[in-house]
């Protein structure tokens, strides 16, 4: 028993040293802005082939979707859907940014046509839901949705 107690204490200490983490999920619902002066409806939105979402701040990550994956290119409407980011961060700020490209192969900087940003305060909430709108920032490689 005298030997068992120190072993248990050591095991507890090592478990404690391992830390206690909990996943937090940030669900970002993304929509293209089709208001006046923005993307010209589905004709232009459907030309967007690649989106790159990056996270900075309390955590860092990058996700690229497309071409022909993750819901791209969009066939109808302007609502793409939810990006879910998982993190252990429960404090600080998380900066979400999306760059939209109408190049059909990769995230070619010359073909960037839209951008959206959202800053969220990280918290202990398990699932945080937010909206993000992608605004048109440049003509891209396929101006006005016409080839």
């Amino acid at each position, binding site marked *: 028993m005298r030997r068992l107690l120190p072993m248990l204490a050591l095991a507890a200490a090592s478990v404690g040293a*391992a830390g206690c983490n909990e996943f937090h999920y940030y669900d970002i619902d993304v929509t293209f802005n089709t208001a006046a002066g923005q993307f010209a409806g589905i004709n232009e939105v459907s030309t967007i082939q690649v989106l790159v979402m990056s*996270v900075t701040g309390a*955590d860092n990550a990058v*996700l690229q979707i497309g071409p022909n994956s*993750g819901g791209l290119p969009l066939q109808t409407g302007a609502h793409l859907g939810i990006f*879910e*980011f*998982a993190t252990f961060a429960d404090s600080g700020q998380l900066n979400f940014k999306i760059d939209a490209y109408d190049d059909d192969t990769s995230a070619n900087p010359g073909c960037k046509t839209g951008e959206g940003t959202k800053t969220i305060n990280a918290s202990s909430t398990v699932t945080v839901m937010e909206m993000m709108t992608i605004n048109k920032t440049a003509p891209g490689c396929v101006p006005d949705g016409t080839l």
Partner: protein
Amino acid sequence: MSPPVPFQKWTLRAGIAVALTVALAVVSLPRVAHADLGDEPSSKSSGGGGQVEDADKPKDGSLLEKKPADAAVEQKAAPPQVAFYEKWQFWAIAGAVVVGAIALIWGGQALAHQLNGGDVRPCNMDFKDRCFGEGR
């Protein structure tokens, strides 16, 4: 001249005689084996009151009693004990220790995994693989 004994009767008698001889030999052999060969005739040893008393034998009876040293010697002379690894208790304890160690390692890893957040939740089908970050 007497009539000859029939062969069957002769054989029967001879058989009985041989059997008796063998039986006598078998019965007497062990006694011969256990006999004190070379001993002097027993009549001498049991020959009346001529026995000499042992002058070295102590008169004090307590001197003949067993001492603690004798007990220790007796213990030493005891038959050797069974080796520890031949006892079932040893293997029972060893097995329990092994099973316990495996359970402790497995349980520890599972506990550490849970404390590290456990498994990340699966990506919702509606999200179309737009899930990323820790654990993904």
